[in-house]
């Protein structure tokens, strides 16, 4: 989020609370600023908007629920960030994410540092009503430093975006479609053979689950640090690395 000029002056009602939003601010940005929690998964401050996880859907009085991450506020907008129906949809989406992959926390490197786990706790997902889908994909352990376990991937594409938009290497992409969709390095080559990869590890630190992890971590030992991206993006926007001595 780049710093905004001036004062917020767009009147918006969010969960019954009258607040002022900045022009062009998204519902999610506003909600976070005024302390209204909206669950997210694919969204990450500092990266472009994806809009794929569908967890941040809110009711704006429109005939369709809107993704808070991608919907700009308008004057007099009345947002309901949660109600029984929305809660039920979100719970079911989290359940679907669990059912389609290998999300058995007891075996996962990221247990305790996992956004999917947090979402499950928050939405009271304590058992799954759907047939479990894994195992569908393989593990790519070809990189000397990192591991990709595709069955733990929720296809949030944070790794794809951070590699392209922040690191500028564009190692990652999504291949195939639907249930077969998966993250691939290069033109679907083993990660370790990708000459584009700079070993920076940004994809690993932003991963919300245990899909990307440092090699050699045991169960529950992996710690992610997604806020790093917002820090980098802000620092870059503000030109913190530019040597200003010459100018002075």
């Amino acid at each position, binding site marked *: 989020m780049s710093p905004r000029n001036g004062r917020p002056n767009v009147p918006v009602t969010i969960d019954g609370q009258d607040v002022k939003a900045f022009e062009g601010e998204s519902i999610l940005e506003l909600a976070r600023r005024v302390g209204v929690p909206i669950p997210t998964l694919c969204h990450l401050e500092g990266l472009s908007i994806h809009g794929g996880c569908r967890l941040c859907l809110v009711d704006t009085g429109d005939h369709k629920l809107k993704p808070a991450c*991608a919907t700009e506020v308008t004057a007099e907008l009345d947002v309901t960030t949660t109600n029984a129906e929305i809660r039920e949809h979100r719970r079911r989406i989290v359940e679907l994410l669990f059912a389609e992959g290998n999300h058995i926390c007891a075996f996962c490197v990221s247990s305790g540092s996992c956004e999917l786990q947090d979402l499950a706790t928050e939405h009271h997902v304590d058992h799954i009503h759907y047939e479990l889908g894994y195992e569908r994909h393989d593990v790519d352990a070809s990189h000397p430093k990192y591991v990709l376990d595709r069955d733990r991937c929720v296809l949030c594409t944070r790794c794809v975006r951070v590699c392209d938009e922040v690191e500028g290497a564009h190692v990652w992409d999504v291949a195939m479609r*639907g249930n077969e969709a998966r993250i691939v390095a290069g033109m679907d080559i083993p990660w370790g053979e990708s000459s584009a990869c700079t070993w920076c590890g940004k994809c690993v630190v932003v991963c919300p689950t245990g899909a990307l992890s440092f090699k050699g971590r045991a169960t529950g030992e992996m710690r992610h640090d997604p806020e790093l991206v917002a820090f980098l993006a802000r620092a870059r926007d503000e030109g913190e690395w530019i040597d200003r001595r010459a100018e002075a």
Partner: protein
Amino acid sequence: MAATIDLDDVANVELEARSRFTHRALVCTSTGCLSAGAANVRATLEADLTEAEADHDVQVVPTGCPGLCSRGPLVTVESRGEESTLYQYVDEDAAHTIVREHLVGGAPVEGGDIVPPDIPFYAKQHQVVLAYAGRIDPDRLEDYVAEGGYRALSKALTSMTPEQVIEAIDASGLRGRGGAGYPTARKWELLHDAPGEHKYVVANGDEGDPGAYMDRTIMDSDPHRVLEGMALAAYATGADKGYIYVRAEYPLAIERLERAIRAAKRAKLLGRSVLGTGFAFDIEVRVGAGAFVCGEETALMASIEGRRGTPSLRPPYPTERGLWGAPTMINNVETLANVPAIVGKGPEAFAAVGTETSKGTKVFALAGSVTNTGLIEVPMGIPLREIVFDMAGGIPNGKAFKAAQTGGPSGGCIPAAYLDTPVDYEHLRALGSMMGSGGLVVMDETVKMPEVARFYMEFCRDESCGKCTPCRAGTVKMYAFLDRICRGVGRKRDLQHLESLCRTVRETSLCGLGQSAPNPVFSTLEHFREEYLELLVEDEEFLPAGAAPTAPGAPTDEAGAR
């Protein structure tokens, strides 16, 4: 060669040339008849005529689709001053006979396999879009011009302002033929008002519903009509470039469109100065790569740009930020094919057909358990019963009608009780189905509706792009529930979970594919719920009545997995 062509000259030369022939044999060379052996029929006709030294008096013309696909190959014989004769199921032997008795002999084949000219299949049609299909050679610009083609474009460029063209479309009441029925003029206005140096017009020919082939036939039978419609749209909106997005599974349509574009450029009907008026417009064909979801406009644009064909969030709408950031308008092929007729003959003639809210005609592809399968163009508001029982000839083998499916995987099933429903946007939606692009699949009494729902869900599962969670994972799980029910091992709880999951997928998916994927389930459940219930196995009542199916702590069976 003069700077621009004189359309009337071209037409006169063409008509003059035609009048020299005593007979013209029009052989359907659209996809259906070609696969039934039309190429061989055409070769036989030509060889026999050469042998009989009659090839100066008789012309063999490869044409587009006359519509009656199930009776192909079809050959129409047009004779000077007489009514034309339509031969069905023409094979090599029949071709020999047609040449001997009709084309050389001069009289229709005695006892030949002739389609009566007054059968309801044709009598009840009102052809606007398909007016020239089956009558002209799609590969010849001259044929289209001889029927009056490109006159609407010429009229608009020389005597109408862009605003007047939009007004004409508005007055006609034309709505999008891709299924949603958005007023076409409204879309054109948006692009017209959008600021920008470059603007794009896109024809959406990524038709992919099972059993639908309207757009394919329009493109491979009358490609110039699509080009003219696009040129008119571009003139009205200020666009300078057009794309026709065609799925790769339509090789014939792609070939003919590309040939038509080349011919139109040579004749200066496309290019830097169309008909010498200074209006610049160019068209390119873009071929899909086998993804149904690319019919969704944001995914389609991504595909044209060479990116992965996944939908993106709207707003911004394509008219604000479309191809390469420029304002873009996407119209269905059939919508655009209506435009030349509206501009050429005036909006009143178009609006005279149809109902209050749905004007004009709609092309339907008949498929399933009906006697005549093929392509028809009917006035909006015609009762479904007339289409199924009169035009399509009813259900073969004495079976009873069960349901008609419209709108493909986004649509729903219409049961026998609603056969008298007028076919238009509002009535079909009220029934839980939709107009869709025009696929109409008729099912007889032997069809099991849960299996129909499973079939469409399998289609959506395989075609989901995987971007958003509800559609990617939800279609897999909905299919699994439907499969359990169809295999006779489903329990009441499976049906409850299926319904609640359907609601979530409908409400939360990113694009139309996911939002409408549950529709076949909803509509079959609404009209045929007892068929689902019959398939369920006895369920011990674990839950107190009225409890939520997902109540924490409820025991699960093996279906509940963990």
